């Protein structure tokens, strides 16, 4: 089975399980992104068909939400908080340090495909600013040193 066949199969599976929920589009998009890491362009026709929507409508929804992505992410996505509480505790410095260390800007992926970097506007971890999230792991009071340690740990896990 080719990779694209297996992606299509996953997509069809998610659509079949969720399409009868009221307002099924977001749950379906989450389901696909959870399974594949992003929402492949060639899944749009299947979603549109499953929900009786136009492709343009489906695409419009995908592009409206910051969280949904249309390109494959790195193995792990780092979300750094840009919001006020984190700024008050040196968040801007952390952002710049992360970009320098990873050699990428926001919305980019390292050349080895290991990390993607995304901004986030508050993680609800403001009492432990500055904060970041990698996958569902959350980190608080992140310093440049602890950033390095976390990244090294994540590299070893990979």
């Amino acid at each position, binding site marked *: 089975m080719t990779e694209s066949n297996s992606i299509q199969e996953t997509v069809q599976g998610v659509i079949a399980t969720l399409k009868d929920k009221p307002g099924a589009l977001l749950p379906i998009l989450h389901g696909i992104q959870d399974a594949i890491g992003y929402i492949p362009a060639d899944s749009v026709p299947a979603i549109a068909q499953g929900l009786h929507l136009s492709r343009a409508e489906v695409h419009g929804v995908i592009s409206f939400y910051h969280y949904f992505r249309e390109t494959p992410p790195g193995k792990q996505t780092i979300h750094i908080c840009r919001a006020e509480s984190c700024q008050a505790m040196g968040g801007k410095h952390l952002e710049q340090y992360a970009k320098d260390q990873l050699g990428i800007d926001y919305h980019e992926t390292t050349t080895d495909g290991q990390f993607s970097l995304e901004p986030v506007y508050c993680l609800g971890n403001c009492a432990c600013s500055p904060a970041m999230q990698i996958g569902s792991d959350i980190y*608080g009071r992140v310093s440049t040193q602890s950033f390095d340690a976390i990244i090294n740990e994540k590299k070893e896990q990979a």
Partner: protein
Amino acid sequence: MSINVYVPADSSAISLGADRIAAAITLEAQSRGIEINLIRNGSRGLYWLEPLVEVVTDAGRIAYGPVQVSDVSALFEADFLHGGDHQLALGSIEELDFFKKQQRLTFARIGTTDPISLDDYLANDGYRGLGNALKQSQADIVKAVTDSGLRGRGGAAFPTGIKWNTVLNTPSEQKYIICNADEGDSGTFSDRMVMEGDPFVLIEGMTIAGIAVGANQGYIYLRVEYPHAHIALNAAIEKAYAAGYLGDDIQGTGKAFHLEVRLGAGAYVCGEETSLMESLEGKRGLVRFKPPLPAISGLFGQPTVVNNVISLASVPIILDKGGDYYRDFGMGRSRGTLPLQLAGNIKHPGLFEFAFGLTLRELLYDFGGGSATGRPIKAVQVGGPLGAYLPESQFDTPLDYEAFAANWTVLGHGGVVVFDDTADMAALARYNMEFCAIESCGKCTPCRIGSTRGIEVMDEIINGLEISKNIPLLRDLCNTLLNGSLCALGGMTPYPVLSALNHFPEDFGVTDTTDAA
């Protein structure tokens, strides 16, 4: 008998290493052949003391914190399992002034129980409010909420009872209860703490709302940034179904209420209630024109209650102890308590629940202990990214909706973010414009285009270019946003921007000689 040890599973505690502490304590106990029962509780909210470990001893619950993995073996050596002395020993959390001086109503259980244990919930006053509600008429339930004086804690402070009454009196086969758990406001985390630390109280509040207005379906619209809350809510919902607290026949009364969690997808504007409903319907989160009110035509065109997590989580205690009990806390038209979230550059960041009326200064210094850096506090942003910055001269404002409104400031969802004197208010104002541009739903031109224009103007100001021309331009832009926006994202971005400019003109390069008209 095994000893009960509590280590929070709250995600902020985890962000500081609570999972590793829990594992280290378990391992150390095993290797010493000591039997312990490790419970993952919610957080007490005193985050400078997290990770906070509590041990149940004959003398009550004794706390240690902030604990690092490297402290664990020394804690065992000090016999912390029997309340032994150690430099991290704090005694009883409930005896600390930080905790004792709070009025914890909505947060009464949080940090004391295992959040996803229904038994713990029931043993600690859980489901007493629902029990009472099931014996009352719908109108009486709504009346209790109205009498309590509860106003929405999501930002707009609209009286909850009035909203419920509209839904109750709008006839329809299908009605909905939506919990707004989008908690997009930076500097806020009280919703998260409730969902992670006491999810049953939210489920109970929503069930009471459903019974009160005649809605049999509820949705919790949860921001995707909160994976721990998602897990806790789903675990608690499953248990509530299994025990007959959700489903088609709640506690044998024949009344039905179903509940499902839906995830958002990183759009701040989807916290606005009509945008949220569009999103739940599977669409882009474009803000709807009002009227119609959601209470009359909301989700899928049906009468819908949309309430914030804290609003709904405050309902069980109101139904348990009565509207008057809740109403007796607070001042003026701000009744009950507000869980304040103290964050940013502050020595003691955390969750403090108080009756309305405490002053900002008391919160910042008596509880917050001043800035984390030890430098003077320059400004405090209250009420999230659309809230104004308050300078020191406004710190005596009591935390009360009307007192804040009188200052052209807002309490919003109760977030308080502190900045020391190194903060650059012009850079912050630029960020506020940028945030508006990034998160705008795009429906109104002032918000969509004006915010981008605002960034450009702020860039010029920051670069010291044509200050006397650019400051009036910035004010004009803000006026256009204030007057020409459909929702508060565009309509209130001027609050932080103009408050920064008005209180800290020097950061904008405005000198006495500049025409700052």
